[in-house]
Structures are given as C-alpha cells and as structure tokens.
C-alpha cells in the first residue's frame, strides 16, 4: 500500500493560481475586446458604461457577421443616378489632401500573403477591371451614388496567394488613415480596389492612386490613398474603429 500523496503547500497553490491567472490575462489580452478597452473611454466618461457599450458593439459585430451573406449584392444604379457634385469626406478638410507621385508609388503587401512583392499602378491596371455604380452610405447618415472601377479584391487576394481563411484584411493609407474588414466581406464580389472614379483615374480627393470601394460596408471602410494591405488573424482596428466606431459596420 502506497503512502498518501502529500498535500500541496500553500506556496505551491499560490504559485499555481498566479500561473493560471497570468494565462487567463494573456488570453483575454489577445481578445478583441480588451484591445478596444485599452483604447480608453471614448463612448462614455463612466468606465463601467464605456465597457458595457464596447461589449455591446462586439455583440453587434457578431450579429452583423451572421447577417452578412456573401451572395447578397448592394443595389446598383443607372449612370443618371450618380450624385453630382460628389461630396468630399475624410478625417481632415479638403485642403489637407495628400498626393503622391504615381510613378514611384507602390502598393505594399504584408502578413499572410505568399507573394508580398509590391505592386505598381501599371501592374494593377493590367489586371481585369470591374465597374460599379453603387450607393456610398456614410456612418453619419447621408449617402450618395458614385461610380468606381478597379480590381476585385477577391481576385487580387487570390492572385497574390493570400490566406483566404485568415480573419482580417487591414488597409494602411499614406494620409495617416487605416481601417480593417473581415475576410468574408473582403471576398464579396462588389469589393474592389478602385483605380477610377466616374471613368477617370482617381483624383487625390477621391483617394488617388488607389482606394478600397466596399459597398457592403459604411463609407468610412472604403479607405482612400492606399499604401499597404495586410492579411492577418490579429485584430488590426483602424483610425475610427479605435475611437468607437462600430468595427464591422456592414450595411
């Protein structure tokens, strides 16, 4: 008959508890929620209410992801429905629009992408293009119909060997803006890397030389003045998302 196992001492229990709580903290630390919480009290000056509102935003994001159908298309319009003049919108006024030299500009690729060589404008123009006349709906409530054409993002991501099972596609812009979208929305047939606006190469105020145009999301997701695209499983956030704009923002 073997002797009974000695009971662990209090020190051993404390050490184990510390180890467990550290692991728990780490796990929570990697979750989308605490990333948002780290960004401070943007939604309410009361920290408890702020946390509750962030939690509800994340719940709503899950509902929105469930509501999203990859085959449901945004309504398209005839050319006569295009809004003129088209309204400028950015996180800065129009006189602060940045420009780049189209000849030296490159689209950089990062993250879970097999071929991360940068792309020139000519290379992007050589890919098959698609055109759409869709409604751009701003989170502020106003909307306008515009015409964009460019490279479908799903075709581009497939071509560069992106991991299409990854969770996020992140966009960084040379005007300091950034945003990110879920992979199913990135692969939606109407999500394009737009090169043209109203059949003309993008002007700086409309996002030259390359912008995202995603009619299944609110307007602020259609990032202008693109610099880099990254495919990742780590929540990338974004300029407005980090301040409390609903991340999924699907329409």
């Amino acid at each position, binding site marked *: 008959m073997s002797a009974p196992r000695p009971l662990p001492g209090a020190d051993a229990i404390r050490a184990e508890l510390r180890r467990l709580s550290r692991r728990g903290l780490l796990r929570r630390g990697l979750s989308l929620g605490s990333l948002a919480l780290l960004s401070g009290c943007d939604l309410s000056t009361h920290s408890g209410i702020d946390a509750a509102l*962030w939690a*509800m935003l994340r719940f709503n994001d899950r509902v929105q992801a469930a509501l999203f159908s990859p085959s449901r298309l945004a309504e398209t319009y005839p050319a006569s429905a295009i809004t003129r003049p088209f309204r400028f919108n950015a996180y800065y006024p129009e006189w602060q629009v940045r420009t780049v030299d189209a000849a030296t500009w490159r689209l950089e690729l990062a993250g879970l992408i097999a071929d991360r060589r940068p792309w020139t404008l000519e290379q992007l123009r050589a890919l098959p293009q698609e055109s759409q006349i869709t409604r751009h709906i701003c*989170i*502020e409530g106003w909307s306008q119909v515009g015409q964009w054409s460019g490279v479908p993002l799903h075709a581009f991501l497939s071509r560069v060997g992106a991991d299409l099972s990854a969770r996020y596609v992140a966009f960084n812009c040379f005007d300091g803006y950034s945003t990110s979208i879920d992979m199913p929305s990135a692969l939606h047939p109407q999500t394009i890397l737009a090169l043209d606006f109203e059949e003309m190469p993008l002007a700086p105020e409309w996002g030259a030389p390359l912008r995202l145009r995603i009619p299944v999301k609110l307007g602020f997701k259609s990032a202008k003045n693109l610099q880099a695209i990254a495919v990742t499983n780590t929540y990338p956030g974004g300029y*407005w998302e980090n301040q409390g704009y*609903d991340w999924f923002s*699907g*329409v």
Partner: protein
Amino acid sequence: MSHPAHPLPIRIMHWIGALAIGCMMLSGWAIYNASPSLPFVFPRAITLGGWLAAGIAWHISMMWLLFADGLAYLAYGFLSGHFRRDLRPRGPRAVLRDTLDALRFRLPHRLGHYNAVQRLLYSGVILAICLAVLTGLSIWKPVQLGWLTGLFGGYPIARGIHLAMMFTIAAFLAVHLALVAIYPRTLVSMIASVSAESDEAGQ
C-alpha cells in the same frame, strides 16, 4: 369586483419600453447631429452619447431591449385581447365627439377604460414605434435587408421616415406626459396595482 387598471405585465413592459424608447430617441439625436437633414441640431447636452460613435453604440445597444420588450408587448397585446378590447380604434364619429369633449375638458378619464381619442393615440403610437423599428432596421442593413429598404422606397426615404417617426413619437410623448401631469393618478396606476374604475357611462 375589481381588476387592475393595468395588469402587471403591461406595467412592467411599459416602463422597460419607456426606458428603451427614451434612450433610442436621445441617442438618435446624437446620430442626427452628425449630419442634420433639417436646419437644426439638438443641444449636445440633451443627447445620449454626445457624439456620433457613442450615439450609435447606445442606439444599437438599446435596440435589443426595445426588440425584446416590443415583441413581448405585441404578443401580450394580441393574445390577451388587450389590443382588441382596449385599443382598437373607434369610428371617426366617436373620435370627433371625444376630441371635442376633450378640448372642452368634458371628457371623463376613467382608469382602465379607453375613450376614442386614447384608442387612436395609443394604437397610433404603437404603429409609429413599429415603423420606427422597421425603418431603423432598413437603414442599418440596406444591403442585407435590401427588400425592407426597397419597401420603404430606398435608403434616403427610409431615413426620412425614420426621422418622421421619431417626431411622431415625440409629439405623442408631449401629449401623453401633459395628460399624466393633469391626471397624476394615471401615473400611480401604471406603477402600483390600482383597481379599474367602474364604467358609469355603461359603454
């Protein structure tokens, strides 16, 4: 015999609904202020959230409370006979007669009984709330719920109806709160179990 002027489920659902609609309206004003479609804004201090992102966070949080409360209320209203018995609108002649009586302060207010004006106002505001919810869904998801947005004539019109329903509900609340101030015992009857008054008019 006595039955309560307002049964307990109605009293509970009324106050949850009041909280949800109050929050929806005040947070909606914060959203409206980001891009006013009419030539005025709501004072920031009386909005819920204060700015766009916080207004939206409140709006799409409280929408779940309104959903749950509204669906429970509609189910109760239809199944218990409350809508059929108490809120079904009367004909235009009864509405006209009761309106004239009300304007001359001759319309008796009996707890637990609904005159033609009350029936019209309560059924009207329930309809306005339903329309506010449906247009709200249609401008929240104009692609995923595109059929609903199309039913309202497209995104810009649906947004306009949503705003109009807010004003309709606000106008109802102005009348509703003024009448509660005139007849404070109605407030008591929506909180505590107060017996319905006898129907002396024998209607």
